[in-house]
């Protein structure tokens, strides 16, 4: 293999088993695949995540960098990982604000300080549904940590996942002249359905994108958003799709053990977080139209997932009198989810905006007919599906009714999806990323 292996500093925010959200899984898979592509990769995660990984004795499969004097038991780390005792001004991510401010001043450029000051208005601090109101502070702390940790280390390029880690990459670029690649998995435009993009997040995202030496977008759909809404030069954006790998299919017995389904019934599934971005209200609107036009009364709707819109959705179901036809299942574990995929006759993904949408790929993997919003990046990989506008409940209802009524429609789309279903491996995607690294 090539001797001049690229030294890459990868910045992640989530990682299994601490956060098993989409970003964490993608970060893990990509990092491992890159390592086997002979990339000299070092991963930095927020300290509290690293500690939990270590406590859980979870093998991340890649080199993790952490503070040697943190409270976790270093002996639990296996040989893959390498830690440094770094001369650092930040000893812990849990500094008090005053201390933190003092330390930070020593690290940060004057320009950065000016930006931060303007960022600190309390109204802007409220946003950030996942991480609470001190999200921006945490991001800044993470940036400072990364700077401290990587002091004295040589890297060819920094690979940052999403805007949350971009601040750190930005600082490495400004202070140490390291080029960085910003890997965009989701934007504020997706998260807010572009209704009221949080101006502060948007501003940070855009600045990070503008400053990035290269951007990896997870779909052409996302690339288009970056070009049109964030006004980023399309020439520096490369599309690298997320991979998906075929998993073991559950047996008939296994799936029936989890769910009881009457053969005459036709099941329609919504799976995902019940949030604005995923468009659950359009699913309920569709259910209403279908129930009104289904004389057999055999079509049932399931919402698998939870989220801040759930009460509103339950209220909608109640108001429409759909209690016995639309069922909220809450969060499902992997076995429950996979067996539901197999029993389901149609799946609807009415996302308002979805950069990739791993769920779509999972649905197709289970050969379940898929009705999917056109604003979903995975569309670009999936040939045999029913593309819809996310708001077009009548069209979605038409598809559900047709799938129920015409068995040959179901059979053909299942067969064609199987014929076309060539999984994309992480190894192949890692090769594409290495090609991008090699430009530095």
């Amino acid at each position: 293999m090539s001797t001049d292996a690229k030294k890459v500093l990868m910045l992640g925010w989530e990682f299994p088993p601490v956060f098993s959200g989409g970003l964490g899984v993608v970060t893990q898979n990509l990092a491992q695949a890159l390592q086997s592509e002979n990339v000299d990769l070092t991963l930095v995660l927020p300290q509290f995540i690293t500690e939990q990984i270590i406590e859980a004795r979870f093998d991340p499969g890649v080199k993790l960098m952490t503070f040697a004097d943190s409270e976790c038991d270093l002996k639990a780390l296996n040989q893959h990982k390498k830690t440094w005792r770094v001369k650092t001004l930040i000893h812990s991510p849990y500094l008090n604000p005053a201390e933190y401010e003092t330390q930070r001043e020593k690290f940060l450029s004057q320009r950065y300080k000016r930006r931060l000051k303007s960022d600190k208005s309390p109204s802007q601090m409220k946003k950030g549904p996942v991480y609470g109101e001190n999200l921006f502070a945490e991001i800044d702390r993470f940036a400072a940590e990364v700077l401290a940790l990587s002091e004295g280390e040589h890297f060819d390029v920094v690979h940052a996942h999403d805007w949350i880690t971009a601040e750190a990459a930005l600082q490495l670029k400004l202070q140490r002249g390291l080029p960085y690649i910003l890997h965009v998995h989701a934007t504020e435009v997706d998260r807010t359905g572009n209704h009221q993009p949080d101006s502060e997040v948007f501003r940070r995202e855009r600045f990070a994108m503008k400053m990035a030496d290269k951007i990896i977008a997870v779909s052409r759909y996302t690339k288009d958003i970056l070009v049109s809404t964030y006004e980023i030069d399309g020439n520096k954006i490369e599309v690298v799709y997320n991979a998906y790998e075929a998993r073991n299919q559950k047996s008939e017995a296994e799936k029936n053990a989890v769910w009881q389904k009457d053969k005459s019934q036709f099941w329609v599934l919504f799976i995902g977080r019940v949030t604005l971005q995923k468009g659950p209200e359009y699913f309920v609107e569709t259910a209403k139209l279908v129930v009104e036009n289904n004389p057999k009364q055999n079509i049932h709707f399931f919402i698998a997932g939870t989220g801040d819109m759930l009460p509103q959705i339950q209220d909608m179901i109640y108001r429409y009198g759909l209690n016995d036809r639309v069922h909220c299942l809450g969060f499902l574990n992997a076995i429950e989810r996979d067996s539901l995929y197999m029993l389901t006759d149609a799946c609807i993904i009415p996302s308002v905006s979805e950069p990739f949408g791993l769920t779509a790929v999972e649905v197709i993997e289970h050969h379940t007919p898929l009705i999917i919003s056109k604003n979903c990046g995975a569309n670009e990989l999936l040939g045999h599906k029913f593309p819809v506008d996310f708001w077009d409940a009548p069209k979605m209802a038409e598809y559900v009714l047709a799938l129920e009524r015409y068995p040959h429609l179901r059979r053909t789309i299942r067969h064609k999806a199987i014929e076309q279903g060539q999984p994309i491996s992480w190894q192949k995607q890692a090769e594409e990323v290495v090609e991008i690294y090699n430009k530095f």
Partner: protein
Amino acid sequence: MAKSICFYFQVHQPFRLKPLSLLGHQAVTDFFDHEHEHESNEAIFNKVSQKCYLPTTEVLLRMCKQHPNFRCSFSLSGVFLEQCELYPKYGTPVLKNFKALVKTGQVEILAETYHHSLTFLYSKLEYAHQIQLHRDLIWKHFQIRPQVFRNTELIYNNDLAAFISNMGYRGMIAEGWHTAMEEDNPNLIHFANLETLPHDDQLIAHKYAIKGKGRKSHTNEQHFPVLTKNYQLSDDIAFRFGNKDWPGYPLQTETFAHWVENAPGDTVNLFMDFETFGEHQWADTGIFDFLEHLPNACQAHDITFRTPSQTIEDFTPQTQYHTEHYVSWADEHRDISAWVENDMQRSALAELQDIEARLHQYRSHKHDVIDKLWDDFRKLSTSDHLYYMSTKYFADGDVHTYFSPYPHPYDAYINFMNALEHLNAQFEHWHEHKGKSPKQKRIHRSFRLTKARLAN
């Protein structure tokens, strides 16, 4: 005898379905008139008329006048001619030009099914009936009886050839595909391998035969000629003409005449969609000039033109065209998979077959509702509806999607099946009431009620 070019142009426009819904409980009785004017069949007809039908027929009229030896032939589907009458703004001048072309005596009209259908796949009776309907329509407009048959999409096999020969036609045209030809040369005149027709099919063929010609039963000794398409040279015009990456670009009439001269055999059969001129190959590719100047270039190479009938008349069949499987002019494999490959297409065909069988119970019924049901059913039998459902090249975004009014084959199937649902509902409704007027029904019901009361 001088070598000749035999031109045949296919002119066809399907009645595309309007979007039909499963939502709502309203009965739908009109399947084809689109609410959105710009997507309507009329809009498409008008567009193609302006780009192709009118300018090309005018070029051909000039050519007939300037070159007394110029010949060509058309197959005009019944649904195309119906649209000429239905959409008179462009339809009237288009039809007028076709009539003028036929009047020159240099242009032949071929026989086909009225509805450009695939009915031969499931019902010879309906197939023969649609051929008869087309024959009557051609007589109405042109006062001629076509003698050479062209089947939908040049679909051909031995059985079909036997059926068509039993109907009294003088010959048939087909794709020059190597699997069907003894010698791999489409420029020779072929004869069909006629198998004995099942008795029932023979009865049907004779019943619907061209008057006075049907009874004679062909044998392999009495050759039934088959004209085969030279797809290489045809596609040079139809598909490659405007392609700047093609080594032959830009194609000059002189070069083409030279290729024709070098092609071994008696006739070079150039069969293509009429929309080649101005629609598939836009005017700015120079396609019209090419067509108009071709006779001059041919003259220099001692190449003349013949209609299919003349070609059959002037040359003796030399070699056999034999195929058990269907051969068509479509796609890479020249088979019928573009129409019957997937489950949806096969189920749609099965549904059509069912509906036809049910309608046949009322064949002798003279009733507006039944007439309308037959008419709609037949328009749904047009092959294009099945073609739109093809998933063969869907993922590649190939020609199938280019020619389809639907974004994907699943939409095509759903809309078609919805149309059949509505058609069935109409039929059920009529069947229940057996054509009784609402007033009669009311009398009946009150009569029954009276009887019931009396019984009490």
